[in-house]
């Protein structure tokens, strides 16, 4: 007897299902379908009514509606943009600039938060009392402060007290730090630079192939191959070699002091830096706890078993503990990445032009609150869903493969 028929049996104790002629009203499946259809219908009706009502009210209040405004000239400038943008661009372009800024700070934040989080998380498990305590203090501090305060700490407490452009802190290689941000030489590729980039890509592909081959060989013969060094050589060494052989085909544009600011070169503003650092440090405290929990959750017997098999400590960690811990770590890590992305909308507080800030400006100019809020929702939903999909894929890859 399958599970289903057993359930039917239990439910059908009043009217034995064996009769086969149950009235539809008493058929749990039919009832289930009925309620689901009803729910969908009611939700659709609700959405329809709200939409109608909104449109009606907007018309009555003479407020413009529709998405046509996206084609209009934006008219405002944006301080930080990854793409070509001016006040002559459209509102749609402005939104794209904001979206890219959000994505940029989110990706940078996720990477940095993961690195710091792993280090701190491992540090908390350290045998060294001092290191463990320092890491614990880090977690307790950053986990318990609202992220907005962390942003302000960086923006007002650290970056805004740096010297002004005239007295910039000089760093090596023509880099400067001042209260307008971090300035560094702009790399201008010259002919031949593409070849070095190609060498880099070839190096990556080659290292993947070599790794595969090495693994297979080890499986078959048990012989190990110095794969770490080979990879390093292929991915970094090869392009550097090509680059040098070609006679370093780049030139630099150095930042120089203009009348007001450093001009030329590249510049990362304090708005981005403070948001990025704050999100990274804040989220890292949660990731650290997740990492610590994940490692702790791997039973001690695993370490002992590995030791018994004669694995050294490093190998035990790399081959036994961490792969198992990762399975526990990845799902909660996903929520932290999503949190970080959503927290990036705190950007408005320091004047970083993320999608919420830019959308807010548009909302104010066009008055089209409903449309812009809808766009925001769709954007954040898409970012979250893509992150979740990626992490699910990664999780599936890491999950226990039972043989």
């Amino acid at each position, binding site marked *: 007897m399958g599970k289903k028929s057993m359930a039917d049996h239990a439910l059908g104790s009043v009217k034995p299902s064996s009769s086969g002629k149950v009235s539809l009203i008493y058929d749990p499946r039919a009832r289930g379908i009925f309620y689901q259809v009803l729910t969908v219908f009611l939700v659709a009706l609700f959405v329809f009514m*709200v939409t109608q*009502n*909104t449109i009606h*009210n*907007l018309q*009555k*209040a*003479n*407020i*413009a509606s529709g998405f046509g405004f996206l084609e209009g000239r934006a*008219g*405002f*400038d*944006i*301080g930080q943009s990854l793409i070509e943008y*001016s*006040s002559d661009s459209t509102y749609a372009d402005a939104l794209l600039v904001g979206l890219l800024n959000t994505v940029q700070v989110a990706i940078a934040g996720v990477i940095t938060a993961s690195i710091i989080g792993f280090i701190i998380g491992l540090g908390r498990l350290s045998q060294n009392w001092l290191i463990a305590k320092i890491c614990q203090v880090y977690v307790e501090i950053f986990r318990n402060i609202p992220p907005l305060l962390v942003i302000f700490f960086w923006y*007002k407490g650290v970056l*805004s*007290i740096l010297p*002004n452009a005239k007295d910039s802190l000089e760093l090596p290689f023509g880099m400067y730090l001042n*209260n*307008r941000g971090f300035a560094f030489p702009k790399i201008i590729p010259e002919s031949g630079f593409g070849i070095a980039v190609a060498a880099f890509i070839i190096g990556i592909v080659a290292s993947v192939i070599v790794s595969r081959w090495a693994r297979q060989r080890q499986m078959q013969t048990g012989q190990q191959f110095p794969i770490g060094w080979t990879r390093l050589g292929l991915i970094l060494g090869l392009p550097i070699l090509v680059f040098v052989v070609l006679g370093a085909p780049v030139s630099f544009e150095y930042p120089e002091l*203009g*009348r*007001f*600011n450093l*001009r030329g070169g590249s510049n990362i*503003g*304090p*708005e981005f830096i403070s948001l990025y650092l704050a999100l990274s440090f804040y989220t890292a405290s949660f990731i650290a706890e997740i990492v610590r929990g994940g490692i702790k959750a791997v039973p001690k017997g695993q370490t002992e078993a590995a030791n018994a098999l004669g694995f050294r400590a490093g190998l035990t960690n790399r081959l036994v503990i961490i792969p198992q811990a990762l399975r526990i770590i990845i799902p909660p890590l996903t929520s932290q990445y999503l949190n970080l992305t*959503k927290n990036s*909308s*705190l950007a*408005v*507080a*320091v*004047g970083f*032009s993320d999608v*919420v*800030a830019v959308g*807010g*400006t548009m*909302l*104010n*100019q*066009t*008055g089209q*609150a*409903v449309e*812009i*809020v809808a766009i*925001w*929702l769709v954007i*954040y939903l898409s970012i979250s869903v893509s992150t979740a999909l990626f992490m699910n894929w990664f999780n599936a890859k890491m999950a226990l493969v039972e043989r």
Partner: protein
Amino acid sequence: MSKKLLSAALGAAILGVGAHAASAATLDDVKAKGFVQCGVSQGIPGFSNPDDAGNWSGLDVDYCRGIAAAIFGDANAAKFTPLSSKDRFPALQSGEVDVLTRNTTWTISRDTSLGFNFRTVNYYDGQGFMVKKSLGVKSALELSGAAVCVQTGTTTELNVADYFKANGMEYKPVVFEKEADATGAYDAGRCDVYTTDQSGLYAIRLNLKNPDENMVLPEVISKEPLGPAVRQGDDQWFDLVTWVHYAMVNAEELGITSENVDDMKANGGPEIKRMLGAEEGSKIGADLGVSEDWAYNIIKLVGNYGEVFARNVGPDTPIKIERGINALWTKGGLQYGPPIR
């Protein structure tokens, strides 16, 4: 997502489900609740600014008190909602405030597609630039390459884009949502320039660490007629808000002040008596939806336009603004009240 997003979404939801506020008779609502709810700035000295005890004062605040006086005969039957530049429009659209008396520029898009109505200008202004004296800049045309602090949701950020473009200059906008954050960033040296309405510049300068180290450049790059805004579709309320200002301007022209208003009401000429509700059988007040002594109450409790100007932003205040184009039309300015008859 951020609080802002939520409040905007909420505004949208309110708009969707209960936007009846937009067409209802605002005056009846106001009378029923017993006070008028005005949207003001979060703190611009001289225009709308709370003191330590939370009492509001300023030119825009007095406009709101004038409305309260006209309706209730009580200048204190007014409540204030501080709004950032960005939040002010959703707040008015959704009915959170009855009227926006908050340094808001009358522009065609706000008058049409945003669904508002403007008619009176209680302060004629224009956009300017403030810089540190130590920069040695004498004209806005020297500002190419500068970092400019500006508040979002304003005409300011649009004008500055136009101005720099028209003059072939570059700049780096640093855009804040709150005036206090923008000011703080300018003060901390994040920007070389702070730009907003000139009135705002004079007011904000006072809030800087060292006001005297900063100066306002001579260029005025835009027209900023600042006045109250109401929702479209409620002519009665629109008329009332409009005539509060005209009553104050006409009172100044006729020499009626808060001091002499009783005397004027008893002994003034027909024009004065008509305005102050002392004319036999007049129904001006009734037609506006308020009592006949509405104008009397405004002048008595708040003052005429000249008094209000002098008290809040005039030469004897820390802000020290001359009447300039805000003088009466009879004195070479633009303030002109249509006849009350």
